[in-house]
């Protein structure tokens, strides 16, 4: 038997691409003493990642390869990206 489709059925259940999430910071730096990452917005102000719920509450995040803002991936369904 030949299968004419080249797209596995599961992919027909896919939702349209997720919108790119703009991170609330443009720069991240590591504090040498505490080893905490600190984040700054375009104006150089520190971003409070604990209370800026918009970022920690999403289950999606950009592929964290340092490639800048990008489409997010669903964190609780990891892709085999590594």
């Amino acid at each position, binding site marked *: 038997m030949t299968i004419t489709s080249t797209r596995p059925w599961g992919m027909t259940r896919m939702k349209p691409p*997720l919108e790119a999430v703009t991170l609330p910071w443009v720069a991240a730096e590591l504090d040498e003493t505490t080893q905490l990452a600190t984040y700054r917005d375009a104006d150089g102000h520190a971003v409070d990642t604990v209370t800026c719920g918009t970022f920690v509450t999403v289950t999606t995040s950009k592929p964290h390869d340092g490639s800048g803002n990008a489409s997010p991936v669903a964190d609780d369904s990891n892709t085999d990206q590594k």
Partner: protein
Amino acid sequence: MVITCMDDVTANPVIAASNERGSRVARVDPADIGPDLTFSAQIGADQVGWTGSLRTLTRDVALEDVQAVYYRRPSPWRFHELPPQEREFAKSEARHGLDGMLAALPRCRYVNRPAAVERAEVKPAQLQVAAEVGFDVPATLITNDPGAVREFAAKHAPIVYKSFRGVPAAPGGEVAAIWTQRIDPADVDESVRLTAHLFQAEVPKTSDARVTVVGSRVFASEITALDGTLDWRRDDWDRLVHTPIEVPAPIKVAMRFYLRRFALAFGCFDFALTGSGTDRQRTFLGCNPNGQWAWLPDAPAIAAALADTLLEG
């Protein structure tokens, strides 16, 4: 040692809690290997455990002194400047030589061991162990046979489809999601034959429970989606209501057995809740061995429990 990327905001509270407990923390992203991350380690001759050093831009760590590793979300390997074959070689050598080294440190506690996470992420293994430790598991079919899907649907409708993993990025970098969703068996066609597919009887749930287990500590929230979405992860997060809930002792025992079977110190369990009061049923949906937890109301306590588990076991 906290193994994660710079953009991982969730590692911060665990690092802060570890600092408060007087430990010296090194935040390490193995993908930095190169001038920004140099390591060298030896074993054999008179050495029975790996000894050596790992140097980042801000820390110089003696590998034999590492007592605990919190393995979170390291970046994917980069090597963008290398040609394709060289890049693949560099990646696999780094995966074995550096990641492998950091996973094999002697006398070191891990939350979690990457190999344990890898095993525990596989859904057929999750469902097998869940059934063995006594959780209610929904009727589940994994197949590439469309006829089997139709038969399963005839018996268990309504049914849902779940992918095992996320969708790989499209060539342009766009990422799409496949959320858990109810399906019409009439839509199932021959393209099911191309690969493995997972179908499950839909649980007529009224809400979900996310139970985060850290060592022997249990943090449980009931999650109610105001618009009744099947998969709360797709919901608008402002419209989710979190309520602290008690976890019955038999469920706690089953979770402990489950985590022990996979050699995990940390796991995020998802249950579908049906019924209420004494009739409440909890159906196992999955356990993410590296799940997110920072959005939960219990986040500060979870961070503290992670630090305690890392430092004391």
